[in-house]
């Protein structure tokens, strides 16, 4: 409770959390509010916003409802962002803990692999992966996670390196626990908080990467994505700019919200740490 109060202490955190809450609500109510296929043709093509109140944000080049697409796009963006971040954190924590706890040759090997992934720009990696595997939601998530797990791996390893020298770890060894059990039951949970602090950055980056992939036509064509909407609208940028601007604003707000909320979490934990 205390922590929550501290979290809501900063205006950034409040702004970030409310944007995120709005987004989550959008994603949740999308199938209720706009049941049926969001890509169905709902009206005349290229209807500007605020003309027809049954289609408040107008329609795109085929006559699809922009508002419905925006809501369903929020689902894709959030789903991809969260799934990719979860996968990246999971792989990163796993690799980092193993490397830090095992040390020696395993550490060297795992860290060199991490280096190798870190030297390739993550967007290029995602681009290459999706072009080979073919565009689908799973492939996009995997592609983004593939470029994002190195940060958490490094942070986790650094934490584990300091934790494994603690007394309770030595104690666990003495009572004869299996090293893997020690690593994942004793060390990892304590190394996790700073790794989780990276999550907001990763989610924000994942949402942007997903949008960029969709913009380049490498997103899942059977789903509405904000990046895909921007790409669609680009052909008519001069005559119907709202088609690109609306999802663009949504994207900016989302990334900003995720980032601000993440900042809030970091700050509230920092206050807690300095207090303790």
């Amino acid at each position, binding site marked *: 409770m205390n922590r929550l109060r501290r979290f809501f202490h900063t205006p950034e955190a409040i702004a970030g959390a409310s944007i995120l809450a709005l987004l989550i609500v959008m994603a949740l109510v999308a199938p209720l509010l706009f049941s049926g*296929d969001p890509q169905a*043709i709902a009206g005349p093509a*290229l209807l500007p916003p605020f003309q027809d109140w049954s289609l408040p944000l107008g329609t795109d*080049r*085929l006559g699809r409802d922009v508002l419905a697409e925006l809501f369903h796009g929020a689902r894709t963006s959030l789903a991809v962002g969260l799934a990719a971040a979860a996968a990246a954190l999971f792989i990163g924590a796993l690799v980092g803990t193993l490397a830090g706890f095992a040390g020696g040759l395993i550490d060297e090997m795992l860290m060199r692999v991490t280096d190798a992934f870190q030297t390739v720009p993550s967007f290029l990696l995602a681009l290459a992966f999706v072009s080979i595997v*073919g565009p689908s939601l799973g492939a996009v998530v995997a592609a983004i996670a593939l470029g994002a797990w190195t940060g958490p791996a490094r942070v986790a390893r650094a934490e584990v390196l300091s934790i494994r020298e603690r007394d309770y770890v030595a104690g666990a060894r003495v009572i004869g626990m299996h090293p893997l059990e020690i690593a994942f039951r004793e060390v990892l949970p304590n190394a996790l908080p700073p790794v989780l602090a990276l999550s907001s950055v990763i989610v924000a980056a994942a949402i942007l990467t997903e949008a960029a992939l969709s913009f380049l036509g*490498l997103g899942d*064509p*059977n789903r509405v994505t904000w990046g895909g909407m921007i790409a669609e609208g680009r052909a008519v940028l001069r*005559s119907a700019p709202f088609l690109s601007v609306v999802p663009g604003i949504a994207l900016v707000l989302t990334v900003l919200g995720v980032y601000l909320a993440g900042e809030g979490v970091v700050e509230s934990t920092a206050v807690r740490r300095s207090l303790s």
Partner: protein
Amino acid sequence: MSELTISRRGLLAGSALLLASTALPTIGLAQTPKKGGRLVLAADSEPRNLNPAIVASNGVFFISSKIVETLAEASFDGKDGLQPRLALSWDGAADGLSVTFKLRDGVKWHDRKPFTSADVAFSALQIWKPLQNLGRTVFKDLEAVDTPDELTAIFKFAKPTPFQLIRNALPALSSVVPKHLYEVGKIEDNPANNAPVGTGPFKFAEYKAGQYYRLTRNDAYWGKDEPYLDEIVYQVLPDRTSAAAALEAEEIQLAAFSAVPLADLDRISKVPGLKVITKGYEGLTYQLVVEINHRRKELADLKVRQAIAHAIDKDFVVKTIFLGYAATATGPVPKNDPQFYTADVETYPFDVAKANALLDEAGYKRTDDGKRFSLKLLPAPYFNETKQFGDYLRQALAAIGIEAEIVNNDAAAHIKAIYTDHAFDLAVGPPVFRGDPAISTTILVQSGIPDGVPFSNQGGYKNAELDALIAKASETLDTSARTDLYKEFQKKVAADLPLINVAEWSFISVARDTVGNIANNPRWAVSNWADTYLAG
């Protein structure tokens, strides 16, 4: 008061006269072509091989048709729709076994060597027949080319070949390349494929990858006073939205092949100094076609194919996707073809209820979730419009209970998926009608084509009756009998739906007012531009 009105009127009249007098000389200039100047235009692709004798495609012609000429070019008012280029006349024998070309005298290659019938014989036998994508079919029975003198070339065919077909093939398939440069070494690896040498009004000057192609004036061109332009520069602008901006900023003077997106035309037509031209592509009609994989048991059922045809609102496609710059299609020959088109075929008006009834009849009832079966749909990535039609088709199919999953590929992967791997159920393709159904249209439905031949029937469709009709038409010499056979062909295709023709469209040019002699033949964008000029 009245005095004032009179004086004002007088003033107006006077200024109008003054305006007219300054305007007159410019009008005069626009009518007589002016020499000199550099035409800068947008190019959206960068073909590596610029030899039109090997790669007969519009992307290559767009650049190399100015350098390498054909025997004849399409024409709005010439006899048989042709005007002479390197050949002055063409004459088919009654038995269909030979065609005699009389060639133009005094034509020189860009390297000053004389152009002779030996060049024509070499191009036809060594390149068009064995190597060219389209020539392989049209010239398959070409046996020899006799050259009794330097200005006569007689094509000899092993089997009777319709003269009508040869005539219709001349504008696109008969690019003549110099024998003296191509006779040594492998033709495919010849350096002249990347820096072509021809007889045309412009010479190839340079190519900077990702930037531009530059052509310069051929001073020794055979056309009197031609060409008018000094230089043509193709500015590479792969991004479609940038062509419109470049036109407005006067960085380029011409954007052909719909480089300006259709959605921007309405706006750009109102920009002073720019004109939107829809003519000049009549000989290059693209067809929006739903390709069908007949290996799928549902799609092998004619009722299902009819249902899909009824589910597509062609008027919506023309109005919304092509913004009116297209026509609805009735069959495999486009409406604007003057020789072969017939409207007397089965049509499939937009009727969702009927489509649903047909599917029920075929035994594909809706399950509890409202779906009958699902399909993989591959829209061709070459055009915005084919991609958008893919999105539309998915919705149209959803309305009749067929769930379509869209699979996007890049151009190379798309061609492989459809024409080699057959990994599709439905595909959206843009085949081109090239003035005669035998050139690139019958191949879309004919059976027995080996795997991997792009833009051919790879859907596993087999109809012995239709195959026999195609074979018969290919050896019918009499023009009207042949035309009738192709009308029959259209009827059969429309009735049995090996594929579904949705719409046919062509391209739009946007140019500055100063560019003259635009769109003066049905293949203007891919003709030689000897008479194109820049005023002012």
